[in-house]
């Protein structure tokens, strides 16, 4: 059977015409406005309270809309954005080091390996400067210099220092800023907050997104919530690999359910494997911990020159070490983009030069930096990361070099959205990591926080107004047949999962799925491997529905049921990721096809055939997905072979 068919191309992304630096201004001017008196009568559902959803919900409420907000954690403050460590980019050029909106735009398009939309990326770069202002006004305690002004540092893929940070807890501080703004609106009665609620279905009425079905994770009650528009800000799907740096609860359910209802899923195979994570220590491993990319500012990456060198790192002399990133990429050195650093680590380990008990590790060494700057300076910059490393591994990185290895970290793919961040379903908006829009085939460090806040504070509130202004929509409530049907579907699904009553746990299936994905759809992909993976995923999915064991009932707090629903959706997504990876017969950014590399082993793009966004349409369970292509045009940043040498 065919794996997919091809449908009509996507003709219009709704980006205004004209020079790229004028497009956002044009859009803002042309967007229709909603009269403040009417806003109160309009309800917007926002699923997710991370940087994207939290900032959007707070801003929409400030503007006067009635907002219903959802998250699966016990408090909106715990969204996975809280874990972001390193920093947030902005084109402030406070360093006077040649940065500008245009340079951030350029770096991001290039960093994404020419697979993102110029219009969106330019807007992101423009808005970046407002984000820093907004966060400072909220009391976000960014790192500062002695003069009292904001400090910045460099991140991978850039030669300027444009990354703002709050020690190693930037995501936490930015999220708490958004959370506090959100709590203010909750206190004022403008936002109805529903923590410990999981969205399990999207409700469409007359082709428009009008509501969601949620399960109260404490009581198990399933209910339908209706609104004038729905915003998904539910984060990324890296947990399809089981082991990743994402929080345990991160899932694809919200976006996948929308996909099944007709929303296109774009570039699902674009995943980011982060080069600096703590290596796996055993079968019990439940997640992987990131060591922020900022460490590569001062840490030097190396492995022994000879294979199988088992000596302790301090016994390996300078001339016996291979600082391979500095050797291969002299101009960017340890600060090459993530995809490149990850693959280089894999290559040296594949050569047999990996370190640590599993040999799947490379050193990240701070000895030089400590010598040059002193231990105190290093402690001030990275203290919490060093402590975290020691707690997990039992080794002191001030004394022994860290051991790191790549791990799944971020997903560039997501629901397809137009320039307004609206999916192909009217009234369904998608923001933050959940959409596909700005990072192409590879995201640069410190750009996800920037995108989440750009979407939530500035872009969505403008573009959603344009949609709402075309209303008012017909009033609908939970008794509408479409709403009843969606709720019944959810109830049936919950019962089906409970009814299997097999002999394998959800985690055991999830782990096995993750292994298939890591093996065949991870850092390196090949046609044979992907075909094998598709067969294996299908077989395992069948097993899942016959053998999974979910304990308890649907009418209580039931964590094994929550996991089962998420893993069931991961199974479907995993297959689409492999199909997307298989159809893209080129290498670009995080998508590396073994068959498509340059003579020196770098990603070999094929712009003639693949300079497009692959937006997939769901047809039916087991049916072939339909591919819609959105051609990418590069008018300002001319595609070249990325070089960081």
């Amino acid at each position, binding site marked *: 059977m065919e794996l997919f068919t091809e449908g009509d191309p996507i003709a219009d992304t709704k980006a205004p015409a004209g020079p790229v630096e004028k497009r956002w201004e044009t859009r803002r001017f042309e967007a229709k406005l909603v009269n403040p008196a009417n806003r109160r009568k309009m309800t917007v559902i926002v699923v997710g309270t991370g940087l994207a959803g939290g900032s959007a919900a707070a801003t929409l409420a400030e503007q006067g809309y009635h907002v219903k907000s959802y998250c699966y954690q016990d408090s909106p403050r715990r969204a996975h954005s809280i874990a972001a460590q390193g920093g947030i980019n902005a084109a402030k050029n406070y360093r006077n080091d040649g940065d500008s909106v245009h340079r951030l735009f350029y770096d991001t398009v290039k960093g994404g390996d020419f697979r993102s939309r110029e219009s969106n990326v330019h807007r992101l770069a423009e808005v970046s400067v407002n984000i820093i202002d907004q966060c400072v*006004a909220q009391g976000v305690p960014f790192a500062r210099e002695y003069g009292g002004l904001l400090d910045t540092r460099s991140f991978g893929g850039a030669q300027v220092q444009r990354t703002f940070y709050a020690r190693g807890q930037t995501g936490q501080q930015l999220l708490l800023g958004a959370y506090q703004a959100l709590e203010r609106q909750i206190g004022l009665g403008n936002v109805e907050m529903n923590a410990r609620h999981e969205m399990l279905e999207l409700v469409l009425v007359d082709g428009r997104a009008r509501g969601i079905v949620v399960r109260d994770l*404490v009581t198990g009650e399933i209910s339908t919530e209706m609104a004038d528009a729905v915003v998904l800000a539910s984060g990324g799907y890296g947990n399809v690999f089981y082991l990743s740096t994402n929080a345990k609860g991160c899932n694809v359910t919200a976006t996948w359910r929308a996909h099944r209802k007709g929303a296109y899923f774009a570039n699902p195979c674009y995943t980011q494997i982060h080069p600096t994570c703590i290596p796996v*220590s055993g079968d019990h491993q439940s997640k992987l911990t990131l060591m922020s990319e900022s460490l590569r500012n001062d840490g030097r990456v190396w492995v022994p020159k000879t294979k199988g060198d088992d000596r302790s790192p301090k016994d390996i002399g300078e001339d016996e070490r291979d600082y391979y990133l500095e050797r291969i990429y002299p101009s960017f050195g340890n600060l090459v983009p993530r995809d490149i650093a990850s693959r280089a680590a894999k290559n040296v380990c594949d050569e047999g030069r990996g370190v640590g008990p599993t040999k799947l590790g490379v050193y990240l060494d701070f000895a030089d930096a400590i010598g040059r700057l002193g231990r105190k300076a290093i402690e001030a910059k990275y203290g919490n990361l060093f402590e975290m490393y020691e707690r997990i591994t039992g080794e002191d990185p001030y004394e022994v070099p860290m051991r790191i290895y790549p791990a799944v970290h971020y997903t560039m793919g997501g629901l397809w959205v137009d320039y307004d961040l609206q999916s192909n379903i009217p009234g369904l908006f998608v923001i933050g990591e959940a959409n596909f829009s700005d990072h192409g085939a590879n995201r640069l460090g410190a750009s996800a926080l920037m995108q989440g806040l750009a979407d939530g504070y500035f872009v969505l509130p403008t573009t959603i107004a344009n949609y709402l202004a075309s209303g008012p929509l017909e009033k609908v409530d939970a008794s509408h047949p479409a709403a009843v049907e969606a709720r019944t579907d959810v109830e049936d699904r919950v019962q089906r999962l409970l009814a299997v009553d097999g002999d394998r746990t959800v985690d055991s299936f999830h782990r096995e799925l993750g292994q298939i994905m890591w093996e065949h759809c991870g850092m390196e992909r090949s046609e044979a491997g992907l075909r094998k993976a598709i067969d294996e995923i299908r077989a395992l999915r069948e097993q899942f529905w016959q053998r999974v064991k979910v304990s308890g009932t649907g009418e209580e707090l039931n964590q094994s049921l929550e996991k089962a629903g998420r893993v069931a959706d991961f199974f479907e997504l995993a297959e689409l990721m492999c199909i997307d990876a298989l159809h893209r017969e080129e290498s670009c950014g995080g998508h590396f096809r073994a068959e498509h590399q340059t003579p020196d082993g770098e990603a070999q793009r094929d712009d003639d055939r693949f300079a497009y966004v692959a937006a997939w349409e769901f047809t039916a369970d087991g049916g072939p997905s339909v591919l819609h292509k959105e051609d990418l045009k590069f008018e300002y940043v001319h595609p070249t072979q990325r070089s960081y040498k």
Partner: protein
Amino acid sequence: MNLTLRIWRQKGPEDKGRMVTYPVDDVSPDMSFLEMLDVLNERLILAGDDPVAFDHDCREGICGMCGLMINGDAHGPQRGTTACQLHMRQFKDGETIDIEPWRASAFPVVKDLVVNRSAFDRIIAAGGYVTAPTGSAPEAHSTPVAKANADAAFESAACIGCGACVAACPNGSGMLFTAAKLTQLSLLPQGQPERYTRVIGMVDAHDEAGFGGCTNAGECTPACPKGIPLNTIGRLNRDYLAATAKGANNTPGS
């Protein structure tokens, strides 16, 4: 390692609850505490028993979702460490470990080790913010902040809202949590306009939520995984006094 766990099991808010003993074998010292509980739960599920419910998400000490009393210590024996970051190498082979939920009247038990901490959110909603609607912000560099203040604000802002301070406090007080946010915002120029209404709003919300009063028992800071210092409570008290003297009302934003 082989361990004996004694875990608090409680079906729901109405259930009385009790300690149940579970032996667990083959624990690796490299496992985290929560991974050890995962192993137990996998076994319970296959045996047809109800797995132990516990909250967690990031598993890297930052989301504040996990929270367990381990042998009577909030987050367990290692200082400055959340339960998810605690590793089994901190325990001895053959040890018996008691695992209980946070116990505080403001944090009712939902199930097993899961408690309801929404009272913390209500404290923040009552003033734990700077009123700065999106779009209204001035250029970031228009207000420099002395590095020492920025650093100290950051130290307090590091609170993860886990509730260990409340669980450790003999009075079940949430003062350390409240004081951490107040200290952060009162050290920054952006936090000044609402400084006194904020403290009244947050302290009132704290008291209404059923937290106990602070009697300077000092149990909170040692239990706090982020080392929020006790002197933040002193700052809170000073601001509270100043605010009541000024007669500030608790209308946020006024």
